[in-house]
């Protein structure tokens, strides 16, 4: 036990992240404080602290294996599904600590939705894909209400006009970009407060990517969005704030423009100018 504690001590060691405040004042949706992640005996994330602004897009960037996806998965406790993964620290969202094990993950995940790297529609009809979340949570009181939720979610995801005549066809039959928007609609249908996106465009062609990026911009009005991306251009296009991760450390975070135009850290600069990555 003590070995584990010593390890936790080591990983909790403070790391001075360079922080540049926002020029415009924003409400903080989630405040993460000293979040560390250990896979078995391997530390994956070292004492990360960051404030996620509400009604804005925050982008996590950094080279592969830097811990950005691991950190993203802390926001809806998806790391719970991995054997031997431990998460330390606090994540405060509207007064609830997300990392508190007394917190019900079912409810948390209804509040914090997620869109994955590869589109993963269920092998069900388009309608049932969207209706899945509302059905399991029992938020639709009637069939009419369910239909309304489905159509509203599809509209918000910008997919309605393309699929409204074939809602009973399988969701797996759509194109890649449509599938990803279906997955976004599926997440919206539960009416979450936060949407996590784990490289949502990495499996898509440029045109589908553009559609999704436009959609993200629109969704920002109503949702807090965190996006992990490999593409610096994408981070620049869609996000208001950017956090740069390196080897499990949060190196620098600030307004997107600032990070890209005037990075303070050498590593950040090297990464965004393409010296490595």
């Amino acid at each position, binding site marked *: 036990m003590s070995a584990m504690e010593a390890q936790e001590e080591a990983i909790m060691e403070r790391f001075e992240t360079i922080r540049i405040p926002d020029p415009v004042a924003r409400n903080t949706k989630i405040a993460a404080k000293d979040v560390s992640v250990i896979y078995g005996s391997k530390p994956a994330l070292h004492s990360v602290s960051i404030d996620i602004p509400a009604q804005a897009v925050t982008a996590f960037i950094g080279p592969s294996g830097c811990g950005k996806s691991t950190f993203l998965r802390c926001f809806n406790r998806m790391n719970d599904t991995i054997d031997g993964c431990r998460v330390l620290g606090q994540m405060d969202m509207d007064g609830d600590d997300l990392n508190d094990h007394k917190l019900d993950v079912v409810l948390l995940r209804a509040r914090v939705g997620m869109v994955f790297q590869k589109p993963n529609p269920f092998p069900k009809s388009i309608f049932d894909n969207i209706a899945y979340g509302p059905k399991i949570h*029992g938020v639709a009181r009637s069939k009419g209400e369910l239909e309304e939720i489905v159509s509203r979610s599809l509209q918000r995801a910008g997919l309605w006009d393309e699929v409204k005549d074939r809602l009973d066809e399988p969701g797996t039959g759509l194109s890649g970009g449509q599938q990803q928007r279906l997955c976004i609609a599926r997440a919206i249908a539960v009416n979450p407060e936060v949407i996590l996106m784990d490289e949502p465009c990495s499996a898509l062609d440029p045109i589908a990517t553009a559609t999704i990026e436009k959609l993200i911009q629109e969704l920002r009005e109503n949702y807090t969005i965190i996006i992990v991306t490999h593409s610096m251009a994408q981070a620049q296009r869609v996000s208001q704030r950017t956090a740069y991760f390196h080897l499990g450390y949060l190196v620098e975070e600030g307004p997107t423009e600032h990070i890209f135009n005037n990075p303070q850290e050498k590593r950040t600069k090297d990464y965004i100018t393409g010296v490595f990555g």
Partner: protein
Amino acid sequence: MSSATETLDGVDGASAARSNRDIIERRLKARHRAEFRFRMIGLGAIMLGVTLVALLFGSILAKGLPAFTQANITLNVTFDPQVINIPDRPVQGDLSDADYREEMLAWQRRLVFVNWNRIIQDSLAKVVPAAADNARDAVGMVASNERVRLRDMVRDDPSIIGSTKELDLVAAANVDVWLKGNIDRSLPDSQQQLTALQQEWSDQLYERGVISMDFASELFTNVDSRSSPATAGLLGAMVGSIMMMLIVMVVAVPVGVMAAVYLEEFAPKNRITDLIEVNINNLAAVPSIVFGLLGAAVFINLFGLPLSAPLVGGLVLSLMTLPTVIIASRASLRAVPPSIRQAALGVGASPMQAMFHHTLPLAVPGMLTGAIIGVAQALGETAPLLLIGMNAFVASVPGTPMDQSSALPVQIFLWQGNELRNFFEARTSAAIIVLLTVMISLNALAIFLRHRFERRW
């Protein structure tokens, strides 16, 4: 992204989320209860499965273990020359083989007609004097095949006539049943298997230590017997089963491995190999009894091979095991990474050399495991053997694979149907324990090999 969206966006996101949250929270408890229930049902299903395993083994062990000990009567047997009244054993001299055998048979026929019951009765009378006057009761105390044993002793060494030897004679099955309490002692004498006198003698001799419970070695050294259930053993069945397993190993394993090598490495991908593929998968799921029909029609009716022969049984079981061996061998060939074959091809080996020098040696452990499991499966198979005549009663040890023989599972089938229920239920269970022990050892060997040689790529 038209007007519809805008009006919908008018709904305040945060407050909608708020009311959603209340709804979800209200149902949470019920959902977690359902989750717990589901999980418990799953655990219950596994526990039920494990319990059934325990129950099966428990019931077989409880019934079968007592049968490994058996009542033996230790008697001083006098080979009385008055009773064993026979001429000297013939010697060959300058007789031809045929004539010598004829004389020998005549002599042995005299031996058969000796009153061996009298010998047993006299021996028993030394410990219970009343036996001298109750021939029937006395003879019924000892397994009837023990007469044959005494006869064989004289046949092998006629010089023992006139001497007295202390022998452990196997008690009759009914004595064993009586002493082990496998029969209700309160039943009236008319329904008992032992006569009143025999009951009294059994208890008395058991108390005096003349009858003792010893390891039932005849289970392993004797062949099946109808007239003398207490001395019925598994030797013939075990030898038959071993012969069939050897045939399966010699036929199914090499053929299966070579077929797998061809299909996995050399076969062109076309409709014919597709057909072979479907065919093998299907053969693996064909009921075993159909293979028995094949054996009856082809090996016995068409080729005229003998009924009940281990050769026929082994061939039928080989055909049945073949798909298992092919599928397992292909899987282990496929598990060898292609990089190894490519490396061999890259330095100029022919595909055949790459196969036999590099891929095959790496796949051997997996193939071995599959082969052992296939052989174990064949060992336990019963139905096809019944159709090639192996349900016949055979009271001899097969000398060659062409002789009549029994097999372990068939012996179990025959014993469970014996009328002497309260004795043979235990015997059958004991035979099952023997069969399962062999099978589990084989499977354990397979698991051991898999762990010992398992490679992760």
